């Protein structure tokens, strides 16, 4: 059972205090978007064995959504950061690159 530190309140919350929100950094495509764009937004989800970015909500705590970078294979957590981020913080990306030289980036 995972532990993720909520970047808003600092609680090291266990998984039962959180609710998952699946892949992070999706770009919303609304009216006017092509079928391909909408399909990518709605359905095409990454499922990597390795570094992955996810949305989590501290639902039994401060109620805030945050983002987490972790390895889906080893469950190593590289870091958590606020949901109001359009891309992972640079220092977090550096940390992941150092630990996983083969990592191709979050996009």
């Amino acid at each position, binding site marked *: 059972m995972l532990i993720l530190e909520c970047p808003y*309140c*600092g*609680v090291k919350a266990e998984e039962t*205090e959180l609710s998952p929100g699946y892949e992070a950094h999706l770009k919303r495509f609304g009216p006017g978007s092509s079928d391909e764009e909408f399909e990518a937004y709605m359905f095409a989800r990454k499922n990597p064995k390795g570094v992955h970015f996810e949305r989590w909500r501290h639902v*039994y705590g*401060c109620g805030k959504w945050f983002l987490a970078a972790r390895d889906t294979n080893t469950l190593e957590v590289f870091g958590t950061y606020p949901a109001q981020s359009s891309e992972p913080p640079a220092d977090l990306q550096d940390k992941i690159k150092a630990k996983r030289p083969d990592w191709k980036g979050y996009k």
Partner: protein
Amino acid sequence: MSNVVSALGNASFAGFAKITEVGPLGMISLRAKPDVKGLAEAIKAAVGTAVPAPREIEIAGGKAAGWMSPDEYLLVLPYGETDAALAAIAQAFGGAHHLAVVVSDARAVFRVEGAKADQVLAKLSPVDFATLGPKELRRTRAAQVAAAFWKDGDGYTLVCFRSVASYVMGLLTHSAMPGSEF
């Protein structure tokens, strides 16, 4: 007002710790960003405390202000004083964006008292009581429902939703059964 009743009518249970449903207690949910003008004045006017630090609760007599999230505070005060507090809050904020709403009736409040009160809660919540700060307001779950508690005097005050008050009373009773202390 005689028509006002708390969720369980102040039910209690004496096990290795004492459980009491208290209230009705006045509560206001205040949502505002920490840097918004008027926040400190609003909290001071409503409950007489400073703005609580993250994850802490400031207690002053029968009133308190707790930090619930980066833009949410829980104000605790006597049940009958919420309307006056709302007015004071509105005045303090002027036109600044905020939301203050009475939630007194949406909550049930319990006191868990005794030397081993923490054990009652440790059976229900994934919380490390050894590292719980003296002023910490911990939001978590108690078994299957949301709860928040803080240390106050020789025990803890626990807040949950009113609709699950009898469930939470059942949990606390089960956990405080005589002989089940560690």
